[in-house]
């Protein structure tokens, strides 16, 4: 039994949450999920949609900054959608995650010595493309890492920068397949109720 008088500052503090959502691959799902956020005027910090390891099942990874109380309510609303198989909330430390960033820089800045190249290497970035006019760097990491490199490169004149949504894998050992199996075998699709008042 939870104590309703407990200190709820923990519930009310804003922090970053990663939502991992499994859905059937149906058109309109992205819209169905994002309107839940829009209606509550909640911002999605990053979103990524991809096929999962199970054919026909898609995985959404959404990053948001909010309170525990709010994220719990949002997740319940997401789970309520007919074609959502499952939705899980993770706090920092409960998932392994990465984002990928691409930086487009003028080729000429690489020509005046190896300073930039060392910078790139020391940040674990790699050169993806070399063109006459520009060079594209790629770095995978957490947002603060890709951000740090962005700030370092800023003075050299960045032509274009883009960062992907987060992709995240939980630290729990459960297989998605096992989760789906449990859904399939669940007996909550019909009502087991004694009919004692003549009404179904």
């Amino acid at each position: 039994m939870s104590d309703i008088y407990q200190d709820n500052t923990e519930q009310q503090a804003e922090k970053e949450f990663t939502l991992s959502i499994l859905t059937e691959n149906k058109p309109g799902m992205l819209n169905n999920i994002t309107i839940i956020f829009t209606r509550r005027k909640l911002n999605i910090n990053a979103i990524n949609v991809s096929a999962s390891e199970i054919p026909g099942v898609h995985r959404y990874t959404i990053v948001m900054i909010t309170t525990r109380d709010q994220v719990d309510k949002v997740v319940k609303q997401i789970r309520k959608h007919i074609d959502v198989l499952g939705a899980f909330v993770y706090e920092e430390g409960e998932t392994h995650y990465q984002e990928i960033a691409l930086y487009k820089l003028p080729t000429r800045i690489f020509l005046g010595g190896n300073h930039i190249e060392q910078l790139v290497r020391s940040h674990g970035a790699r050169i993806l493309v070399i063109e006459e006019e520009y060079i594209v760097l790629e770095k995978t990491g957490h947002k603060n890492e890709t951000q740090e490199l962005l700030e370092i490169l800023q003075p050299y004149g960045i032509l274009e920068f883009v960062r992907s949504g987060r992709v995240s894998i939980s630290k729990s050992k459960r297989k998605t397949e096992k989760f789906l199996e449990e859904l399939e075998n669940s007996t909550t699709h019909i009502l087991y109720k004694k009919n004692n008042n003549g009404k179904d």
Partner: protein
Amino acid sequence: MEPLSKTLETKPEEKRIVTGSEAVILSLLEEGVDTVFGYPGGAIMPIYDALFGYEKELNHILVRHEQGAAHAAQGYSRATGKIGVCFATSGPGATNLITGIADAQIDSTPLVCITGQVPSHLLGTDSFQESDVLGISMPVTKWNFQVTRTEEIPWAIARAFYIAGTGRPGPVLIDITKDAQFGKLEYKYKKCEKIRSYHPYPHPDERKVLEAAELINAARKPYMLVGHGVLLSGAENEVIQLAEKAGIPVASTLLGLSAVPTDHPLYVGYLGMHGNYGPNIKTNECDVLIAVGMRFDDRVTGDAKKYAPQAKVIHIEIDPAEIDKIIKTTVAINADAGHALQSLLPHIIETKHEEWLQEFRDCDEIEYNKVIQKDMYPEGEKIKMAETIRILNEITGGDAIIVTDVGQHQMVASRYTQFKQTNSNITSGGLGTMGFALPAAMGAKIGRPDRLVVGIIGDGGIQMTIQELGTISQYNIPVKIIILNNNFLGMVRQWQQLFFEKRYSFTHMHNPDFVMIGKAYGIPSEKIENKDQLKSALENLIATEGPALLEIVVEKEENVFPMVPSGDSVSNIRLE
């Protein structure tokens, strides 16, 4: 299962090739649909063409506006417990349904709405009568789906009925492109019985059940609130059993009305902003609050932070998203109300709480002296809404289905109507849709021809869907319509008086002659203004065969009390 019509009798080995449109009709028949409310138009014409051959099997009611179709389907569903069905064409036909669909969504009413859509090759081209119905209806449906391939039709309809009617019910919309309606398929129907991503009936957690029983058994001032979920689950008997076994006073939300007969000794009244005095203030004095099939709407809770802070809260609720949404629970049982109560009942110790119940009765006396007596037996010549309801109760004996619109008359009717039978109160609760009552009453009467159906409607609301008098007239639907006319948008006027310094901004109405309108539709209509006519006019209305309309001119500036001012605590309910 018996074949529903000769046309459904096919030998198993025989391949049955039908058009998509005919598959729609056959699928509806498979689901046991007997009535459809709708309005034809370009993109749904093939379905209407198929319907033409099934007039005997399927009763189609041609409404006068698609909003009327949706509300009529709601009224039908709420009166029968079955799924309401409506048809509309693409574009404006579909958008006109939206208010009714939104109403059904917030009030958990199962509907299957079938809309025609422009041919699939024209989708997204801004073609004639094209609107993004899927996008528009997404936030207000339990599920929606666009059929662009003929062979998807039986599957989509089977799924629609399963989703609409199970778990927490709600509206489903199936949008079918015109080419899919014209196409052919090999017709086979299989009812949907399971969707792996949808779990409508969570089992009550036995530990939670025991915890709840423990709280109820230890309670000194237990208090039970019942909502629409009790009616939807058919858990009326279980609620009464629990109340009687543990001696728990029971109050009802607006949509829970009629679940417990109003004359039951443990029934203490109606909750919320214009609810009864005791049920509101005792919320903040009980020690265990048992909420069954209700969602703590803000019209019930007032300021949620000051709502039952002293109480341990047990929430029995089928929709997990409602649990801890507004009021934090001590114990939540996530299950169908009836199922949960059946699990709970064996663990409940028989007891009585006479002193606690007496506290409610004492409140009743205060409310009676300050409000009810003046409302029900008013002095002066002008008719008051509450005495109309009092006399109506005397005539119906509490056996009628009462359909109300939105506003003062709705609150007065909800406060004073006597209910003897369940599923007897039909109103727009969550959305508060003016214009709901006339078409909903019509749908309710079609669903339950055996019951007296009385629509109680304000002069504002009736004019929002007044054209449905045409439908009522065409099909001779014997609903009894009462217009409580105060020439004001009364509830807004009351707020203007109380909270906006009597600045009556656009709430006064210059109304048409409702009797002439009624008569123009061939509906026997009468208007009264004096108290001495009230009883005989109401008796006459009920006794009239077929549809009938009675306009009652009521006091212009009557206020509904008690009242919990918006955003205030339920403890601060005002009696005057």
